């Protein structure tokens, strides 16, 4: 008996009902690439997601349809996920002091007040 599906493409293939498809081994999976897209000239490239590809050329071709079909885009970057250096989770503490020291934030200087005052003069 072959598989009967509501999808005519499946029925047409006359696939046996029982089949022994073996799942891919880890080594057969393609590597992942991170995709960055630039919406217009002068904008920063922004990380939009990742995808599987065997090399960077293929990654660019596939990224175009995954991430640039429905949004405005003028340029794409792809970077091998494994090429990205990152801080580890237990290093997270090094960022811990930041929220306490509000004077480090540009907003802390209240420059806008002075600029506005100057403009009014």
């Amino acid at each position: 008996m072959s598989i009967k599906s509501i999808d005519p493409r499946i029925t047409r293939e006359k696939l046996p009902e029982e089949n022994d498809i073996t799942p891919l081994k880890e080594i057969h999976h393609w590597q992942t690439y991170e995709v960055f897209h630039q919406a217009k000239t002068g904008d920063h490239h922004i990380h939009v997601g990742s995808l599987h590809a065997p090399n960077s050329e293929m990654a660019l071709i596939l990224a175009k349809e995954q991430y640039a079909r429905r949004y405005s885009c003028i340029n794409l970057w792809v970077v091998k996920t494994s090429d990205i250096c990152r801080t580890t989770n237990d290093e997270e503490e090094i960022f811990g002091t930041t929220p306490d020291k509000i004077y480090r934030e540009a907003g802390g200087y209240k420059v806008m007040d002075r600029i506005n005052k100057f403009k009014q003069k």
Partner: protein
Amino acid sequence: MKHNTEQITAIKDLIFRMADDQLILGHRNSEWTGLGPILEEDIAFSSMAQDKLGHSQALFQILSRMGETDPDSLAFGRKENKMKCCHLVEYPIGEYDFSLMRHFLFDESEALRFDMLRNSSFEDLSHIAWKFRGELKYHTMHAEVWIKQLSNGNDESRVRMQNALNECYPLALGLFEPSDFEDILIESDVFPGEKVLQEKWYERVSMILSKTDLIIPEVTDPAIAYGGRRGIHTEYLKPLLDEMTEVYNIDPSAEW
């Protein structure tokens, strides 16, 4: 430019050929949706199939404005012998190697055809030739990267791509089956003709394939896949049309 009745007939024939190729190949390629080799490629290939349907729709709209019936009836309401698509686009999707090779050979010709139409004296055609150039450029980029990738892969992929080329190439020559209107189209600056297009296509395709180990097969009879442009089709078109128009035919007057 104003075209006379004879020229209008020739232009309509050209547009029907192009629209039917895009419609049928768009439908064929959409059969891969959900079954593609990997998710990313499934999405890309399906998107391009959708683009093709969009191109055929734009062409049917032009025909409508030229006095033919509405685009839906043109796409879904014609019998097999009124269709003008070439045999290449009618073949079942086969394995992915066949579908990729067909996509490569077809889209290279389509991109060049639209390139040539950008200077057409028939403004509706030159307009969409400009409009679709980005999509067509992506289609050929996609095809070329895959062809290069698989043809320079391992022995299995190389052999499969060569077999796909051997199968597709003679069929692809049917794309350029000359019509009865070639001279009229050329003289009125609508389209430089199938012969010129075929030469450009051969040049382009051999240039891409020269970066691989694939060999273009010798074709003894270049007219082996002719007939499609005159309504003579392969056994594969009828079942495709039946499936594609199944819902439409339940009630052709339904509003969507």
